[in-house]
């Protein structure tokens, strides 16, 4: 979870547990916005660097496999990356992902910045997970090395620990 300056992150690091989650409203599909404050129950934010990359595909496939376990606990999964909504639509359809992929596209990376997980040098988000409580406070966060898919176990345990 420790971010070093060499990791390319200029901001002060990921939001820590206990912090209120910054609200956002991002496109999930053309004309269809998802607004955090309008969602009920716990939320898992999956920041990933880019649509189509092999590691991101593995990571999101694992979350798709676990979607039912999160849903059993009333938790909503949201993928977030800086790609445009059109890329997200194609990627989501190609990988048959059921949960929304949000476009943090304009202004680019604004939401990632507000969670402290934007990589200025590369212009992509960290590979970061946030579990938000039903009150939308950060309950847990984890930043993985950019090339390693984190798996789902940590986020699932954090969601289970909420109830």
């Amino acid at each position: 979870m420790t971010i070093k300056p060499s990791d390319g992150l200029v901001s002060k690091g990921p939001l820590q547990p206990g912090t209120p989650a910054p609200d956002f409203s991002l496109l999930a599909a053309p004309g269809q916005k998802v607004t955090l404050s309008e969602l009920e129950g716990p939320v898992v934010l999956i920041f990933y660097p880019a649509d189509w990359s092999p590691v991101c595909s593995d990571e999101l496939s694992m979350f798709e496999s676990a979607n039912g376990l999160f849903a059993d606990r009333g938790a909503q999964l949201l993928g977030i990356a800086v790609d445009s909504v059109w890329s997200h639509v194609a990627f989501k359809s190609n990988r048959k992902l059921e949960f929304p992929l949000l476009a943090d596209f304009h202004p680019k990376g604004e939401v990632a910045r507000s969670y402290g997980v934007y990589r200025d040098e590369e212009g992509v988000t960290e590979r970061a997970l946030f579990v938000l409580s039903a009150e939308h406070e950060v309950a847990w966060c984890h930043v993985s090395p950019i090339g390693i898919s984190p798996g789902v176990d940590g986020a699932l345990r954090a969601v289970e620990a909420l109830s």
Partner: protein
Amino acid sequence: MSADRPQLAVPVGPNDHVVGSDDAAITLVEYGDYQCPYCGQAYAIVKELQNVFDTSLRLVFRNMPLTNVHPQAELAAETAEAVALQGKFWPMHDLLFENQRDLSDAALLRYAEEVGADEKEVASALSQGAVSERVREDVESGIRSGVNGTPTFFVNGDRYDASWALELFQEFLQEVLDQL
């Protein structure tokens, strides 16, 4: 091993598909998907590791079909489990990885027959739900263990994140063995 490295959440038990002795120094657990091309590559590598490490290695295979990208993976896994009820899991496992290009419904039943399973019993097991429950349990144990794609390997309970290219994987396992 770092302290926060994901660990196998469900220990190897009597329900697992195992090759090798319980006394083996190394237990290698693979979570795999029969339709995943990387798992197909890893299949040959694992075979070679079994040759190299012989009785020092115990292999366990658990199902992790990534159904969103591999539409036949779940049925392939369930068919292997149905064949396993007739005691022929490993020949079926091998045949599936050797024939990844055709995992159609008809081909799966043909492979089951080829390894000597009774086709009617396989079809009946597939329709009764017990094998799908078995696959679901594997998937959940994988999710809870930190499986992060396919294939994912665990070496003596720790997730292995480095390359599974033969030379590197063999080197790593040799180090594990030397340290015991």
